[in-house]
């Protein structure tokens, strides 16, 4: 952007120069000389033409192209977001169906079918996380659902019994909470602290898997926890699980709707706003997800504390997949291709405004994806040991790769003419 401005200024400068060169001639030329007059007219004419073509027409055409490209990138992003949330909603519906089937006939098989649906749905959802962090439909204060869908970390004891405390949790407190319905659980979500998570993906995960007490595998909650007469408060646990899976579907439907095409919704505002405002949101989402959420909350914290509890998807032991899916979502916005959509990506714009950073980002995004794939499972074992243990080496490399791509996002933002929440480094 800065580059382009410079260019048009110098064009303007050139025309002014051309004009001023014509003036001295004028002084010397006797006014009677027709030839000189003609020369003057020609000089002025040439200068004017130069001025008009160089200053007005050419940059305008450039700018039109540039503006058009920015608009296309923004509109394809809206397409990606809609496809992402529509798929995520569909996968939550599948999960809901499997959970209902499980609750109707609890068995090891029906539980395991519900768990696979959770894992599949979770991967889709994580790919949409690049659409967070700018008060869009997922996390805007008015009706955002992020804290309903994805709140984490979660204090298990807030929901259900934990080792050493069989009375813990909302489920085991029929006196205070006689009926476990969606509305109540939504109110209870994050009441009294951010870890008091009552609903969303991680609540469902805890209900399906139970606490993770096995160093080599996920939680092993028996299906009988949901069988009346066998599990303590089984009926309440079942009602709870049903309510939270219904809520997930409702909430994701709301977000998908906000991104629907041809409707009077967030998407319309997003694609009609000045393109740079929307581009800034896109880049902020990518940078904040990379640096704060992935590298910070989900990697640096377990890396430093070496505490199992800090693992992102600790009950199901699927944390290692989370990073891959997150990064895949970022890459989709970069390339413009993903969720079954193929269009113009941020990369196409980057190549135009700052080819160097586009090249860097291509390499860095690929490196981060490779790094996330190299994190060994299970994650809660990878964090342990000395700093040269292979798991910890892989984690540190992933953090560094994500940090590198973040700095480049900030530089790209600069080149595009705006700033995001992370400084582009020294």
């Amino acid at each position, binding site marked *: 952007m800065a580059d382009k401005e410079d260019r048009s200024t110098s064009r303007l400068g050139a025309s002014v120069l051309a004009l001023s060169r014509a003036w001295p001639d004028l002084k010397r030329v006797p006014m009677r000389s027709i030839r000189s007059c003609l020369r003057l007219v020609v000089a002025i004419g040439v200068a004017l033409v130069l001025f008009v073509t160089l200053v007005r027409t050419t940059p305008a055409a450039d700018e039109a192209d540039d503006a058009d490209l920015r608009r296309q990138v923004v509109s394809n992003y809206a397409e990606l977001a809609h496809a992402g949330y529509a798929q995520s909603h569909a996968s939550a519906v599948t999960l809901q169906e499997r959970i209902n089937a499980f609750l109707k006939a609890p068995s090891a098989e029906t539980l395991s079918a519900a768990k696979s649906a959770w894992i599949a749905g979770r991967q889709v959802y994580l790919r949409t996380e690049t659409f967070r*962090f*700018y*008060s869009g439909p997922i*996390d*805007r*204060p008015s009706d*955002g659902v*992020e*804290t309903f869908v994805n709140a984490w*970390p979660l*204090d298990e*004891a*807030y929901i259900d019994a934990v*080792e*050493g405390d069989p009375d813990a949790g909302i489920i085991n407190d029929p006196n205070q909470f006689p009926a476990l319905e969606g509305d109540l659980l939504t109110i209870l979500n*994050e*009441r*009294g*602290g*951010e*870890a*008091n998570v009552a609903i969303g993906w991680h609540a469902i995960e805890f209900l399906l898997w139970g606490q993770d007490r096995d160093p080599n595998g996920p939680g092993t909650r028996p299906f009988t926890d949901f069988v009346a007469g066998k599990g303590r408060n089984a009926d309440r646990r079942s009602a709870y699980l049903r309510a939270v899976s219904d809520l997930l579907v409702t909430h994701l439907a709301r977000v998908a709707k906000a991104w629907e095409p041809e409707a009077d919704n967030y998407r319309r505002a997003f694609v009609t706003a000045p393109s740079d405002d929307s581009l800034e949101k896109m880049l*902020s989402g990518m940078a*904040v997800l990379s*640096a*704060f959420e992935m*590298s*910070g*909350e989900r990697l*640096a*914290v377990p890396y*430093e*504390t070496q*505490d199992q*509890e*800090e693992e992102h998807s600790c009950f199901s032991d699927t944390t290692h997949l989370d990073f891959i899916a997150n990064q895949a979502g970022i890459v989709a916005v970069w390339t413009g291709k993903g969720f079954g959509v193929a269009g113009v990506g941020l990369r196409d714009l980057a190549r135009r405004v700052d080819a160097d950073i586009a090249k860097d980002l291509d390499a860095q995004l690929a490196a981060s994806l490779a790094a996330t794939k190299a994190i060994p499972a299970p994650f809660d074992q990878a964090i342990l040991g000395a700093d040269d243990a292979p798991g910890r080496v892989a984690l540190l490399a992933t*953090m*560094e790769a994500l*940090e590198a791509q*973040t*700095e480049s996002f900030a530089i790209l933002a600069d080149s595009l003419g705006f*700033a*995001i*929440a*992370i*400084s582009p480094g020294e």
Partner: protein
Amino acid sequence: MQRTTAFGLACLALGLVSVSLLAIDGRALADEDAPTGEDELAPLVEGEERLGGPASVVVGGQNAFSYPARVLTAKERRVFAVGNAFFKDNWVMAPASAVGRDGLGPFFNARSCSGCHLRDGRGRPLEEGETASAGLLIRLGIPGEKGDLPHPIYGGQLQEYAIHGVSAEASFAIRLEALPGKYADGVPYELQAPHYEITDPAFGPLGDDVRIGARVAQQLIGLGLLEAIPEATLIALADPEDSDGDGISGRAHMVQSVRHGRPMIGRFGWKATQPTVEEQVAGAFVNDMGITSPLHRNEVVTATEAKRIEYVSGGSPEMTETKLNRVTFYSQTIAVPARRNVADPVVRRGKWVFDDIGCAACHVSELRTGDEHAIEAYRNAVIRPYTDLLLHDMGEALADQKHDGDSTPREWRTPPLWGIGLFADVSGHTRYLHDGRARNLAEAVLWHGGEGESSRDRFKRLSKRDRDALIAFLDSL
């Protein structure tokens, strides 16, 4: 024109008309109280939207108070993330499998810092009929020789929760009293005065000489910057004897530092009782959650209570120096969101009024940090916190019963105003002042008394348009 006439009449009635000024400008009446130029706007200052200087970020929404300062390096952002985790996560009763986070209680107000500072925002006060706090706590004391002593049975703070098998100290309830009032132009308003009652004391009666004070949790943005302001700057701002005769006599609150073992200027808390972020944080761990640390090795359990309860400690201390450092760093480096709508003429008018009616005398708009703070990027920076960090006598209506440290019940620290326009987004409410009694920004101003009385009265005499402009300016912060 009608406004001018109304102004004129009001001013005449008050006998405050200055004829000479009228002669100079027939359009706008002016006296020492009313704003002069009717259409004057504050000039746009380069960078004024960046309230937190190097710690500013352009963000809004629910997480507006959750970003690390933009200047942090990638490594520092990791430390920030770790501190954030200990800030958000619930602590549990010892012994527990989560060994890194056990030791809660025996008494506590919340299980996590975020239990009160949800999303690092302002706590919500109690509503009538509610018994659980979401960010409001009650300080306790009895008269001492110099400042209050902790209450002999319940200590310096009422804890309304306790671990399994221990009874909580007490509960409390709130009763609200309506206080009607009127602006000079006749527009009515109604303030709401809170009264607290402590109920069900578990270890015996509180006694007649108990002193109580309610405090809500503050927003935690830009605190490292406030820490980086040199003591000399604050002392220069102070005017304890009001020697310049402007009716405003801020003074620095000298407090004893636990870490440094010497008197320092208090900066944090509603009464500026803590000199550093670290001491505020360590105090919060032990007082609000019952977590001991290298700075406070003993649980806040009084001798009377100790005789009647049993509990297991989560370690000695329960939190390591490293963890304390992480949470401290986190609390120091949360970014300050940039202002919104700075160029809006209404906001600029409001800013002009803010200066004109004397708000900036305490809510100092611009300060410079020194060159000593541990966080390098915070040194020698221009910041716009809208505070002087000094104690001011704010009148009887705002006073409670507490004499914290060297302060009187009427004295309060000028709170920074950065971020106050974002409470609705972050915390879902618009409650202001030390106990959250003000339900909106106008009420917050209307409660000002004492040294703030003259500027409050000038606020009440403003036209509706200028009042709205002032609020629009506050909302842009």
